[in-house]
């Protein structure tokens, strides 16, 4: 119980910081980057529930991001639903899609599971590109209406910033509650030893399906918010490279860490921005590939040296460092 207070202070500090940032940052582009970080945080939290807690690899999480984005776009722009209704409906549909797709997918394990989720993402992109009449094809879907609640229309970046971060904090709260419960324990137990969890009555398959559906629902929500924030979506925002980026975010954040998701998302979004802005000059002619090379390398380095992720693993390494150990010993003596 002792650890609760600092976490609550950190949470409060975060909320205050998030509330005042738009007052300090007047640059719309930077606000937009912060919106992206929030969207990616929602995606990363879900992925870390699936990968870090339940231990099930998913290399196709961007699929559900895309399902949510396109469902929101279609429901609001094509079928004329109010955007405020299209968003939760899209999230619900995406959760359902996650559950149903999970049924065949979770018959597989390990590398096969990784390949199947990757394949799912590839097929999804093919559908987006080929079903142009519905999806707009490779050039995408435009004129997605902004969200409106009552008299308030979220038509500026700052308004959207507050909305997306409010939703993100809600998602973090829900996730923390799940993680610190009977359900979170069951998920971690499945990760540690599926046979033992089953032998104690945990229906491992049901838990995998439900956590996958929950993560898909979050991703659908993130997709809908993303579509409503930028009013335009195209297949490249949801392809396998994005899935790999999401895995990198989860790994940087510490796979089994809810708070770490913000850190992972922020690090990767800012790094990607930096690469796009600066490296293009160094590597003339290169486009998206340089990013994926950097993230691929980052992912490999983290997985090899800090398998618990950058935050958790980094803290462990820091604690084990001779200097920190001596400092602590000195502190404990006094």
């Amino acid at each position, binding site marked *: 119980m002792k650890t609760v207070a600092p976490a609550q202070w950190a949470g409060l500090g975060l909320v205050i910081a998030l509330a005042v940032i738009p007052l300090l940052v007047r640059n719309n582009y930077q606000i937009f980057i912060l919106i992206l970080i929030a969207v990616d945080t929602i995606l990363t939290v879900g992925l870390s529930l699936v990968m870090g807690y339940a231990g099930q690899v998913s290399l196709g999480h961007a699929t559900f991001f895309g399902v949510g984005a396109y469902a929101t776009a279609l429901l609001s722009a094509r079928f004329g639903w109010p955007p405020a209704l299209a968003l939760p409906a899209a999230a619900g549909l995406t959760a359902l899609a996650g559950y149903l797709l999970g049924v065949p997918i979770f018959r597989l394990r390990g590398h096969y599971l990784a390949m199947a989720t990757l394949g799912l993402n590839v097929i999804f992109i093919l559908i987006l590109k080929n079903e142009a009449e519905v999806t707009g094809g490779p050039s995408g879907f435009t004129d997605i209406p902004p969200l409106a609640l009552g008299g308030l229309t979220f038509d500026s970046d700052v308004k959207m910033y507050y909305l997306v971060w409010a939703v993100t904090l809600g998602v973090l709260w829900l996730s923390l509650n799940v993680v610190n*419960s009977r359900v979170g324990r069951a998920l971690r*137990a499945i990760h*540690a030893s599926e046979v*033992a*969890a*089953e032998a104690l009555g945990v229906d491992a398959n049901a838990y995998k399906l439900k956590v996958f559906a929950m993560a898909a629902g979050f991703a659908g929500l993130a997709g809908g918010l993303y579509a409503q924030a930028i009013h335009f979506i195209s297949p490249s925002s949801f392809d396998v490279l994005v899935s790999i980026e999401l895995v990198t975010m989860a790994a940087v954040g510490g796979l089994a860490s809810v708070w770490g998701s913000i850190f992972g998302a922020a690090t990767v979004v800012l790094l990607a921005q930096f690469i796009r802005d600066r490296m293009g000059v160094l590597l003339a002619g290169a486009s998206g590939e340089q990013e994926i090379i950097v993230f691929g390398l980052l992912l490999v380095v983290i997985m090899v040296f800090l398998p618990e992720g950058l935050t958790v693993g980094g803290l462990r390494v820091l604690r084990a460092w001779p200097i920190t150990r001596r400092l602590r010993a000195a502190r404990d003596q006094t």
Partner: protein
Amino acid sequence: MSDTLLQARQIYKAFGGVQAVTGVDLAIQRGEIFALIGPNGAGKTTTFNVISGTHALDQGEVIFDGHAIHGQAAHRIAALGLVRTFQNLQIFGTLTVLENVMVGRHMHTRTGFVTAALRWPGVRAEERETRARAQAYLKVVGLDGRADEPAGSLPFGQQRLLEIARALAAEPKLLMLDEPAAGLTRPEIDALNSLIRRIQAEGVTIVLVEHDMNLVMGLANRVAVLHYGRKLADGTPAEVQADERVIGAYLGVGWDAAPAYA
């Protein structure tokens, strides 16, 4: 209610070409301690695996407490009250010692995804109660002092005890222990001996796989001997120890002078 808690008839299990269990029949009576013994590779663990649903069996039927459980998923069999431990420890190493036992309470608690996510009324009370009960089960095996340590950091012998505590927390009707004494020191084995007696006294039926013959012959009400996947003999400890085939295949002469684990 019949006196037979578990009845296995003509169970078979092969791995590729290896016939691990061949037409074994077992009948476990309510309240007894039943020991399954035999040389390495005789098929004891495989028998556990196919009865508990950890592995699917090839043929045969298993009736537990009036339910046909062959072909059922392990978690369903557990829900009927059949809980087992593992010879090759299956501790949740990344969870704390207490959390391991709390997972043992899984079947007796209800919080699901939605109620947990929304902190539904009652979730916190259930969590508190689960914690308290888990702590009590830790006390039964003497691990209550290490509740908050990562389970993976416990020494081997204590991990075995933790597996037993975790299984007890599930409140089984039938507890199946696969080599609980393996790797334990002599004092630890003595403590295990009295622990198993206490569990039996609580009304739990026990199936025990063990190589430590002093422990087995002292505890068991009945013993079955497996050899190359077949049942060689069964009966009271005295009957089995007197059986020529058992002596030839497994016990040898003067087994009691050389316990399997020093």
